[in-house]
């Protein structure tokens, strides 16, 4: 599916870091916060991207503060998908590797419409192969 934001940015974000399934469409930019244990979800600041193996009920307040949610596991009706759908928040699920590929502090674009997370920082040519 086409995303108007991604197609009109002249390639500012083109390095796809991970792919998953669109649970809730939308395209936003933010800073990654990896949360491996739901009990650490309080570390997430307003406007960050929550990246986690899977959300749980403990994560709901952090999900509300986030701009988008990306998970390793889950499908169209997993906890993350349902809660984000209710909050109208972009969500990519089932990436398998988001928590190991992304790092806290990375600036990314989450294009949930296309089910991808992209780097907003240019990758040096030596690393991009």
């Amino acid at each position, binding site marked *: 599916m086409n995303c108007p934001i991604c197609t009109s940015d002249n390639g500012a974000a083109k390095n796809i870091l991970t792919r998953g399934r669109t649970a809730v469409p939308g395209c936003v930019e933010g800073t990654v916060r990896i949360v491996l244990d739901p009990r650490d979800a309080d570390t997430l600041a307003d406007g960050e991207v929550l990246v986690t193996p899977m959300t749980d009920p403990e994560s709901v307040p952090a999900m509300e503060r986030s701009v988008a949610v990306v998970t390793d596991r889950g499908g169209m*009706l997993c906890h993350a998908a349902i809660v984000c759908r209710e909050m109208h928040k972009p969500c990519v699920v089932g990436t398998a590797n988001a928590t190991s590929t992304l790092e806290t502090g990375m600036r990314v674009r989450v294009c949930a419409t296309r089910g991808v997370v992209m780097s907003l920082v240019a990758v040096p040519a030596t690393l991009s192969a």
Partner: protein
Amino acid sequence: MFRISRPQEFFPASVDEQLALISAAAAVLSDEDVAWISENRDFSEAERYRQKDEVDAALVASPIVSAERQRIESIFAEEPVRAGALYLRAYAKHMASLHDLFATAMQSDTEVLDPSFWKRVITMADADNAHAMYLSSDNWPFSVFHKLIDELAGFIGDDQQALTAILLAGVQDARTSVFNIFGNEYRSLDRQAFAVRVRERADWIRSDGVMPLFAFKAATESGRPHAAAKYDFSKQYEIAVAQILLSQKQRERQRFVDLCNTYQQLYAARAAYDIYEYFGFYAFARHLVIRRAMRELANSSDARARSFHYSASTYQFAELTQIMNLEYQEA
């Protein structure tokens, strides 16, 4: 045409019936017992997520879970609308049996000492785990929803807003709705004071089946209404279904309505399951019998009581066979 079912329609007993059982049981519990039940439910949920891989492995290894999974999967070998109806019948039967088992135990002082009770608990709870896997969770390759979602998505096409509204089925999830059901009545209380206040207010169960005891954090910590509160999910659902319906050819409309109704009923049943099991009656009954059994076991062995507590609290009922010296019962 299409209709919206409410989760309460899928409870195995009315909320009034649940309240009567809970009130009678609570009347003989101490404040410490009530606080323990509230806290142990939170412990059990947190631990279940923390030990997810181990818990999932135990589910896959259990012959009782496997047998129930096969039953569910064979139902869904049927065409999805018919399968949905058949599954809801099987689900209602299962939930009624589960409710009867625990309702009886709640009303008995001696049931938790009876090995045959725990044999039935293990069988029933493991079968229940299979429903959790395919109805309430979406971490498995199969779920009762997958075929329906695929076919619905085909009707809806690229209209992501309509798809989002239809997938929400006009029902708010209990895990977000609990953030909106409290005012300041419990704000800043610790667990013990919270339990005392719940008892004073006789606030055992709300009309939607949620027990405040199992929403400790939402009741005591949350300071702002949840964003989802501003959305009327039923209205969004109705508008989305009507809009997609208009875009369909006449001969395809009935199929779309049938798919919507089946999906919506399953989704409401899923919401009912989550409320009843994690926020409602079953959570109360389960942690109550765990508390009673632990006390009895501790009379002979603290270590055995501790093992029992951990396995029973984290849904690893098969482990109880060894702890309780029971033979494993094949499904």
